[in-house]
Structures are given as structure tokens and as C-alpha cells.
């Protein structure tokens, strides 16, 4: 038994030290957010302010490869949180969605509410926004005018693809995947595929009109909408949450409740990753930002076993969106009522904006895309 005890206690574990460092960052960040109950009840507002200060002072970066956090902090330039969104730090327009509906935020910080819609997403070149109401799919102009509508039951998750002259919108009606032309015509049920999970379908970038969607068992399908043929399907990955492509169309990422699955064609690589809530590929690369409750990871999808942390703090964080030039990552932080812009290109830098809810009608908005610089 002594040999058994000795070997169990001393067996080498890959990355043991790095795991301890990462875990302490996450645990101590969660602890910093927590305060003993009586104090917290008396000081809700100061706590939020403390969280803001923590975000600015305590946020931590690490580059790919996971270098030592402390040495990097010295190299980070930090600005204090702004009281309002005066401008976006990069070109492009931001689409977000509050309880009142979708808003478009211009680079100069001006905002426009599009109306009582939901599930908003950009058209490929940012000329329109696809959105839904209960039983209606709508194409909206950025000024808020309705371009066309299509009545279907229980419409959700419209996603638009194509060129400037020929586009398609994939969406769910109930549990059916449908595809309609960008002019609102030619709506079809996509091939009688199995019932879809409540996950937005994702068009593969490129000339072919291939759509990836997840069914209720968590199988992922790649479907050619022009030819009505199934390219491939995966085995089930239960509890799917999100599908997103790298913009060269080489890698499809699937987030489930407890893992990240990276598909190259039909071949999945499975990475255990509990609790991730959002993921987005950096434009023009295979770097994937993954949002977890207390951290944002920046994974190289070509080397997914390495999981450097881009940003950590007292979450929970809710979502992320890349600027069109790929230089800034916007992280939504509803608990602190903040957006945190993280510059990932060049010298690391944070810009935080507070009071987000009050700027969008009183509810903290979800990020729906940063388009078209």
C-alpha cells in the first residue's frame, strides 16, 4: 500500500503549476466580488464601484503561451471607466439588444433603437438588420424603417449571409430550419432536417451556402442550402448553446454546457470546458475568445489544449464581440453594469464604460455583433 500511496501522491500531472495559478486567479476574483452579507446589504452601490475599480486595477492578461501574469500587469495601460459610451474604440457599428429591442451604436457613440424586435443580427455588409417579433421575420434598415416582413410561427434566430447582390437568411420557425432570400422571397423548409435545438444556425463563410445547425439531441449538421444536400452530421453533443465559424470557414466551434467542440469538416476535437456562455472568433484568425463566468479565454483553435487567459475578474461576464478590425474585444459585464473593451493587438489596454443599462432603456443589453468597419 505504501507504493500505491506514494505513486498517487507523486504522479506527475501535466500543467499542474499553471492550473493552480489560473485557478487562484479565478477563485480570488470571485472572492473579491463577494463580501460578507451584512456589509453587502448596506453597500450595494459602493460594491458596484469596487467591482469597477477591481476590473480596472485587477484585470489580468496573458498572451498565448500563458506567460506570468504579474509581469504582464506592468505592461498594461489602463484607463478608468467612463461614465457613458462616448465612442467606440474601433471603427464599425455595434448591434445590441435590450429589453426594448435592438439598438445600433455608431462609432461616435450615438444610438438608435430599431423598435420592438428581438434576435437581431447584421446582414453581411451591415446594410440591414434581420430581427423577429413573435410570428414575424423582418428585415430592417439601420434607420429603423421596415424593409420587408414575413409571417411565420414562432420565428427565432435569423442569420444572414451572401454577397451584395444575392443573400439568404436562415432562421428557425418553431423547431424547423428555414431559408429565405434576402428580399423576403422563396422561403423553404431546409430539407426536412431533424428538429432544431434553440441555437442560432451559423452560415459558413464562403461562396457555397452551407449552414450549420444543431438538432435537439445536439447533433451538428452541415447542410448545403443550394443543393438541398447534407454535407455531414456529427454525433450528439448534448446541451448545445452556440455555433460560430472562423471567418475563413475552416473551423466551426460548438459550445455546449460542459465543452467546446471544434470541427474541421466533420472531424470534432473535444475540449472539456464547463460553463462557457459565449464564444467568438477573432476576424481573420483562428483565435477564439471564450467567455466563462469569471474569465475570458483566448484559445488558438489550432492548438486548443493551450488555454491562455485574456481577462479575468469578478464576473459573471455575459458575452463578447470582436471589432471588425480584430484589434478590440468587447466583453459584456452585467453585474458591474459595464462594457469592457480589451485591446488585443499591440500593447494591451482596457477601456471600461459604466452605466450601460441606463444608456439602453434601463436593461443591460446583449451583444449581437460589431459590424463592418
Amino acid at each position, binding site marked *: 500500500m505504501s507504493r500505491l500511496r506514494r505513486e498517487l501522491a507523486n*504522479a506527475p500531472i501535466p500543467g499542474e503549476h499553471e*492550473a493552480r495559478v489560473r485557478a487562484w486567479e479565478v477563485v480570488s476574483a*470571485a472572492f473579491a466580488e463577494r463580501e*460578507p452579507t451584512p456589509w453587502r446589504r448596506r453597500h450595494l452601490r459602493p460594491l458596484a464601484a469596487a467591482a469597477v475599480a477591481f476590473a480596472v486595477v485587477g484585470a489580468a492578461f496573458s498572451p498565448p503561451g500563458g506567460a506570468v501574469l504579474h509581469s504582464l500587469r506592468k505592461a498594461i495601460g489602463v484607463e478608468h471607466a467612463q461614465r457613458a459610451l462616448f465612442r467606440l474604440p474601433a471603427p464599425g457599428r455595434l448591434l445590441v439588444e435590450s429589453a426594448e429591442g435592438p439598438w445600433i451604436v455608431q462609432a461616435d457613440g450615438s444610438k438608435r433603437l430599431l423598435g420592438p424586435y428581438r434576435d437581431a443580427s447584421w446582414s453581411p455588409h451591415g446594410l440591414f438588420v434581420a430581427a423577429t417579433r413573435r410570428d414575424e421575420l423582418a428585415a430592417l434598415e439601420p434607420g429603423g424603417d421596415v424593409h420587408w416582413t414575413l409571417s411565420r410561427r414562432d420565428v427565432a434566430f435569423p442569420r444572414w449571409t451572401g454577397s451584395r447582390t444575392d443573400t439568404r437568411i436562415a432562421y428557425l420557425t418553431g423547431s424547423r430550419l428555414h431559408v429565405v432570400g434576402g428580399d423576403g422571397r422563396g422561403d423553404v423548409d431546409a430539407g426536412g432536417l431533424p428538429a432544431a435545438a434553440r441555437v442560432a444556425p451559423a452560415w459558413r463563410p464562403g461562396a457555397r451556402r452551407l449552414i450549420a445547425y444543431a438538432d435537439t439531441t445536439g447533433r451538428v449538421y452541415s447542410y448545403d442550402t443550394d443543393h438541398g444536400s447534407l454535407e*455531414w452530421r456529427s454525433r450528439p453533443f448534448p446541451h448545445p448553446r452556440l455555433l460560430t465559424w472562423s471567418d475563413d470557414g475552416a473551423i466551426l466551434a460548438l459550445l455546449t454546457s460542459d465543452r467546446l467542440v471544434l470541427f474541421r469538416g466533420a472531424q470534432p*476535437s473535444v475540449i472539456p470546458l*464547463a460553463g462557457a456562455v459565449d464564444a467568438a472568433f477573432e476576424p481573420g484568425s483562428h483565435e477564439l475568445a471564450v467567455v466563462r463566468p469569471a474569465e475570458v479565454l483566448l484559445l488558438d483553435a489550432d492548438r486548443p489544449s493551450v488555454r491562455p487567459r485574456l481577462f479575468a475578474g469578478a464576473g459573471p461576464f455575459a458575452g463578447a464581440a470582436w471589432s471588425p478590425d480584430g484589434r478590440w474585444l468587447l466583453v459584456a459585464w452585467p453585474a458591474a453594469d459595464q462594457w469592457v473593451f480589451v485591446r488585443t493587438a499591440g500593447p494591451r489596454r482596457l477601456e471600461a464604460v459604466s452605466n450601460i443599462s441606463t444608456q439602453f432603456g434601463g436593461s443591460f443589453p446583449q451583444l449581437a455583433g460589431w459590424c463592418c468597419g
Partner: protein
Amino acid sequence: MAGSGRDERARIRGAQSGVVSDLDALFRRHWPAAFRAAYLVVHDAAAAEDIAQEAFLAAVRALDRFDRRRPFGPWLHRIVVNRAIDWTRARALRREVGGDAVPEAVAPEHRPDDGTVVALLSNLSPEHRAVIVLRYLLDYTPGEIAELLDLPRGTVNSRLRRGLDALQEHA
């Protein structure tokens, strides 16, 4: 187990009142065993990190309600080992339900094949790994293991016996 006694109660009290150095002391004392126990059950370092990290986050969230008279280690180890067993079962299930027309590659479970006890352990079921780890890494008695895993003591004893037999058989 290390970490019991008056000092640990003082650390828990300090952490409950917001002293980060006391949380740090608890983390330093309990992280290595929690991470190692998870790894020896799941045989996947990334999953072990997630499991142990989630257990500590659960501890932080429950800190205000934690009864200082109870030892911290067993409470943490219960979470870690049960989650590790669940994770390993879930992976096994997912592997079995594959087999579509389309070939698939799934990240293989890391199974060291070097004749060490750790390598031999990977031949056991997660339930058997768990009792071996609790008994011979974390030094719990069979009675304590029964309580941690909510099992009859006889089941724990039989799993220990079968687990040890299997280790010797494969050695």
C-alpha cells in the same frame, strides 16, 4: 487529513469576514489534493482543473453559510470526487452513442501505458478509481468514504477490494 483543527477554523472565520490571506491559505492547503484527486479519477488535466476550480468557486459562494465546526476538506472533496465521477460517466456515455455514418474523432482519454499505479488506475471504472483515491491519496477511512459518496459501507469495502485486486491483476 491535513487542514483540520483550530487553525483551519480560524482560516475559515477569516475568509468569511473577507480576509483574502485566509482564503489563500485554504486554497494553498486544499488545491493540490483536490486537483490531484480529480485528475486521478478523470485522467484529463483540463477537466480536473475545471472540476477543482468549480469546487472552490462553490466554496466561495457558500462561505457565508459554511458551518465552521465542520472540516473544510471533506466538504470540498465530496464535491470534487462526485463531479469527477459524473464527468467520467458522461464522457463514457458520449463515446458509446457515437457511430454515425460520418467518421468522428474525439479527443481520446489520456491513458498512460507505462506500468505505473496511475496507468493501472485508468483501467478501473470511475467509481472504483474514486474510492481508491479517497482511501489512498486522501486517507479517508471506509466509513468516511461511505459518508462522502453516500454509499453503504459494504459497497465501499467491496469497491476497494475489487479495485485493489484489479490493480494487482494488471500490474
